[in-house]
């Protein structure tokens, strides 16, 4: 029995932390927020230098041949500083999907470039007035053309490829949905404003965009189950990203409560503050345990991996909203300003709440996976 990251994994965490420390906390996110992509590019380069994008890619495609658990410390460190960009989507959605469902050609084309940090992927799933359910997918991938409109596509402007969830056979069911890998340059991108400006979103308009068989990821009409598989690795990774944010919030708020004085006492001496921080800490530690286990369960194909991953996601997104809100309150007035980071976490928590799947649906998926 050993429920901890390995020494190597912890060592890797230290490299990542040191590397990100050069960028001064949330500065990369704050710059990206106002449209300055340079800092992000540099931060990404620095992670690439450490080999982060190649970690979970097989050695034959220039990767390190490691797994989901090895990405955990990276995501925790990235989450701590709210690093923008398409890490989760590229490393923990596109990459595992291509590894599992891609053709040899696709693997050759994409995996080495992901490993080298050259390309990123985004996901085009939602459509106007629809939901994450199969019925919501009405963009068509028929007759060699993609047609329709996708919304809330994450960081579309800095993506090289989209994985488009499209309907190859008309209908409202799971069957008939396919995944198409499409160069971002083929689409017309219309930015949408997002409460969390450290993650940009956009509508993607597909007007007779040509594609061929070679761009299909997995079998035609069988894209829905591939999508679900991708969501397992994605949500395990997302959970770790959130754990990193929770950890940073708890550290920051604890420091503040020790320093800030009112009524001649550090505010951390008042149980209203003190015990609330403990509850935040409990949320953090439970989130961490669930997230670590989720990644382990995914990596080892454990029997309970579906419920482990989806329930970790629910807990983490929920805890993130809760903990980020408490942090504002404990900081008081200054926590309400744009100047402090508190609000950046509040906004990112909302961004993730229903990101690539709704809380409601994940509850139901968990219940089903438990056989209820």
């Amino acid at each position: 029995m050993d429920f901890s990251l390995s020494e190597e994994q912890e060592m890797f965490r230290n490299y990542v932390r040191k590397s990100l420390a050069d960028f001064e906390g949330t500065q990369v996110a704050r710059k990206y927020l106002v449209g300055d992509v340079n800092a992000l590019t540099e931060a990404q380069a620095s992670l690439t230098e450490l080999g982060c994008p190649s970690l979970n890619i097989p050695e034959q495609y220039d990767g390190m041949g490691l797994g989901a658990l090895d990405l955990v410390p990276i995501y925790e460190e990235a989450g701590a500083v709210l690093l923008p960009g398409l890490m989760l989507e590229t490393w923990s959605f596109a990459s595992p999907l291509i590894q599992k469902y891609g053709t040899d050609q696709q693997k050759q084309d994409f995996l080495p470039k992901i490993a080298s940090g050259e390309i990123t992927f985004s996901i085009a799933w939602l459509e106007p007035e629809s939901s994450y359910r199969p019925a919501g997918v009405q963009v068509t991938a028929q007759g060699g053309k993609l047609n329709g409109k996708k919304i809330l596509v994450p960081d579309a402007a800095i993506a090289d490829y989209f994985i488009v969830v499209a309907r190859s056979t008309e209908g409202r069911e799971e069957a008939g949905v396919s995944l198409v890998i499409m160069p971002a340059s083929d689409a017309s991108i219309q930015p949408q404003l997002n409460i969390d400006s450290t993650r940009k979103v956009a509508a993607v308009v597909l007007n007779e965009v040509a594609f061929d068989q070679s761009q299909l990821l997995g079998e035609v009409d069988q894209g829905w189950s591939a999508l679900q598989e991708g969501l397992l690795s994605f949500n395990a990774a997302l959970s770790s990203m959130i754990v990193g944010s929770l950890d940073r919030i708890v550290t920051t708020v604890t420091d503040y409560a020790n320093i800030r004085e009112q009524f001649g006492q550090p505010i951390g001496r008042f149980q209203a503050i003190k015990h609330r921080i403990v509850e935040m800490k409990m949320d953090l530690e439970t989130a961490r345990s669930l997230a670590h286990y989720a990644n382990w369960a995914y990596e080892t194909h454990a029997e309970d991996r579906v419920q482990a991953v989806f329930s970790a996601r629910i807990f983490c997104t929920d805890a993130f909203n809760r903990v980020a809100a408490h942090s504002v309150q404990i900081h008081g007035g200054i926590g309400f300003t744009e100047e402090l980071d508190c609000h950046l976490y509040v906004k990112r928590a909302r961004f993730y709440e229903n990101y690539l799947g709704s809380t409601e649906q994940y509850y139901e998926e968990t219940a089903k996976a438990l056989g209820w």
Partner: protein
Amino acid sequence: MDFSFTPEEEAFRLELRSWLEENLPEGWVDGGSNLEKDSKEYELFLRDWQRKLHDGGWAAIAWPEKYGGKNASLMQEIVYHQEMVRVGAPPLVNYVGLHMVAPTLMHIGTEEQREKYIEKILTGEEVWCQGYSEPNAGSDVAAIQTAAVKQGDKWIINGQKVWTSFGHMADKCFLVTRTNKFEKKHKGITCFLLDMHQEGVETVPIIQMDGEHDFNEVYLNDAIATDAEIVGEVDEGWRVIIALLMHERTGIGAQVFTLEKQFNELVELAKTLKEDGVPVIEKQMVRKNMVDLYMKSRGSLLNYYRNLTKALKNGQPGAEGSMDKLLVSELTKELFANSISLQGHQGVLWKEDAVAKDSYWQDQYLYSFGQTIGGGTSEIQKNTIAERILGLPKDMGR
């Protein structure tokens, strides 16, 4: 038990209602202006609105007639709040002057001060702000450090204030300073009626988490005041502060009615917003959450009415105002957090791309975080309720 308004109160309501219909800017009720909050244009608009209110006799209804008020009853004030909330009237740029400074001056100001300030407060000629909070004096108001030192016949003031609403538009400031640092914390405080238009006063905007600018930092570098600008006695300002807070007769009535309105708007949103073609209000979880909000917001409204009834009978509001504040502010946060969740994946859309025009829900959600901090944090309200209403022991350090 009687929830009706008297015919006189209803007549008063109709009078105000028709005045508002005539005097509000065209299209205001349907979405307001598109004025930027921190622009000069917005300031002029607000000043203009206050002048209009004054011209119509609606700027300070609770004031005695001799100062230009209507000598309104508590119930008339309630009606006033209800109608103002109903039409979403523009904020009162001179709220501090009208509801805090002038009543205090009527109560404990000198005759000269009354003559010099009250008329201009009413007309909006002079807009006021308050200088209370400081970086190290938030919940602990008495910990203020801004120092006023007498030199000749002048007071020289140095220090920093924060959370000064309307500070960037204000002509005058009700400023709390420390004039004697050797006295105990609640002693040695003096209140000044400071002129904002002087070299020693600098105002710096605070940008909030919702990106807006409602508050300011005010830096005082050798700012100058005179003896004539002192309210009450030197070193006895704590009493003035307490007296000033007491002049808020109807407590947070406006916020209670606003919450009621916002709840109704949320119901409309839940009815019109669809997911896969089905209105979200038909989802069981949403229904449950909405019923919870319904009963809690009804509860806060009815609690307010009950406390109001007490105030009507006793002539003065009690510490129950802390209960209203705690309930309404926490509930406002809960309501807007729910409003985002209820929008599902669309909840993150912002500004013109949001589900509701001008991202009303997202803006209010972010703004709502300030509700349980400003005007006394929820933790402070709980202490007040525990100590003043329940008779539990005082906290350490207080």
